[in-house]
């Protein structure tokens, strides 16, 4: 897969509302999305779109998801993520033995869905994650090493502090509501409440002060934080 283009995801889901909303969600998450709308000839669409990942519902009009999965497997090794309302052990076994790569049940939690998609795409894409740094106002954040650098000084951040800074650095000049930050942390396996967030922000400010960049994070009273 060329690393320049965004990954392509094909949706095979018959419920129009869920299809549309998933389309929006995945587009917002930075994927190129196409949906199957004609369930008479879904295979043609699979061929012409040549997706990097297929999201496949099991209950479909006409041919069901299992049968479709078998047909797709006959000409393509594209990773398939089953999405279904059924969650018995039999369904799971069937999905996985027919060549599905993963299985997620409705109502799916959205961060979990995105994480699974990400995981599958990464598994099939051997390109390694390159070490990168984000720089803003002369301050460098290194997410891999977990450090902040300003001029010649460097400090280490804890896991929680790193995630907070990462979110702020990737949304410069935006006011980030506290609730949005808490939600982002929960999506990244840090389960803290509003008070603990304040404590962490305070610690980050102390660390920034020692770097000589005390005013980096501004508090917008009643709204949130901004860098």
């Amino acid at each position, binding site marked *: 897969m060329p690393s320049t283009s965004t990954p392509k995801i094909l949706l095979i889901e018959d419920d129009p*509302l869920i299809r549309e909303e998933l389309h929006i969600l995945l587009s917002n998450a930075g994927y190129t999305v196409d949906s199957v709308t004609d369930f008479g000839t879904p295979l043609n669409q699979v061929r012409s779109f040549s997706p990097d990942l297929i999201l496949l519902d099991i209950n479909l009009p006409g041919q069901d998801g299992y049968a479709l999965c078998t047909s797709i497997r006959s000409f393509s090794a594209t990773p398939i993520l089953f999405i279904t309302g059924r969650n018995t*052990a039999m369904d799971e076994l069937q999905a996985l033995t027919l060549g599905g790569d993963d299985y997620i*049940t409705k109502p799916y939690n959205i961060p979990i869905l995105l994480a699974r998609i990400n995981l599958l795409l990464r598994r099939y894409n051997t390109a390694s994650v390159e070490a990168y740094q984000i720089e803003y106002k002369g301050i460098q954040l290194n997410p891999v090493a977990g450090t902040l650098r300003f001029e010649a000084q460097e400090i280490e951040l804890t896991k929680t502090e790193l995630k907070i800074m990462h979110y702020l650095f990737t949304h410069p000049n935006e006011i980030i509501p506290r609730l949005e930050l808490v939600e982002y942390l929960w999506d990244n396996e840090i389960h803290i409440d509003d008070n603990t967030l304040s404590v962490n922000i305070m610690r980050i400010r102390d660390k920034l002060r020692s770097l000589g960049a005390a005013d980096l994070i501004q508090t917008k009273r009643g709204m949130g934080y901004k860098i």
Partner: protein
Amino acid sequence: MKFSDYINDHKKILLICFAGSLFFSVLLLFFGIGISELSLLLLCFSLILFITIWTDYLDKRRRIRSLLSTLDSLDQKYLLAEIADKPDTEFEKAYFHLLKTALKNMTDEIAESKRLNLEYRDYIEQWIHEIKVPITGIELVCENNKTDITRKIMVQTELIEQEVEKVLFYARLDSVEKDYLIKEISLKDCVLEVLARNKQFLIQNNVCVHTDSVTDTVYSDQKWVCFILNQILINSIKYHSKQPPVIQIVSHNAENYVVLSVTDNGIGIKPSEISRVFDKGFVGSNGRYAANATGIGLYLCERLCAKLGIGIDIESEIGHYTTVLLYFPRNDHLNI
């Protein structure tokens, strides 16, 4: 059956015999028979009568005992008429016929109600799968249009989801053994999934959860373990104290078990009630205080744990904490 009962049943015949012998004695005396001959005659008659009655009594008693032991050995007692030895007297045949007809009618009724029950359960499962589609729809719409209002809606949808799950798992409780997939699962994944599913609900309640020391893996079914964890977590939030809820989830390796413990800083459980929290419908003083307790959550957990071979225990100090411990057996022989 006691001999006195048998005599009681046959007192009419005995009375007739007594009256008959009295009548014939008087008649024979009138014809001029001697007292000694008459006594001998009566003695013989009594002897014959007694032997007949006694052997009949023994016969009947044997028959009843054999029927009782057949009944004892049966799991479905209503099948007695089909299994028992065939009767040989006309009287007993008639009773057997009655019994058979009545029991046949009842087995039909049982089969019918079993069928209806199964049909109902299937319908509930079907319904749950259908209700999940609109729930997913709502969640996606809310996620794509995040505002304070949609966040509130999401909390409510998460609550609906929990209740729907509970119904599904209750309906499936009797067929757990037909619906599980045992594999090596990471407890951390289970914990993270449960937390993710209740994200909005937990954030709105200002909950802090520490999961860093959950590292072990166990052999079990992920879906059921997640359901159990979910119930425990919801209880921790439901019965929180005045301070913001902090939940510690920890796993460690004991000799024969992997222990997963969930500790909250909630209101705790009274020592007098702690042994009953797993009973169906038990709400206790905390439940009445929280007003929306149904006494089903922990009952389901306990039943499920028993079916999955997981030990469950609860410790608490009132006003300080409650810890629910799950003991997963270690299957070392599976690690070849």
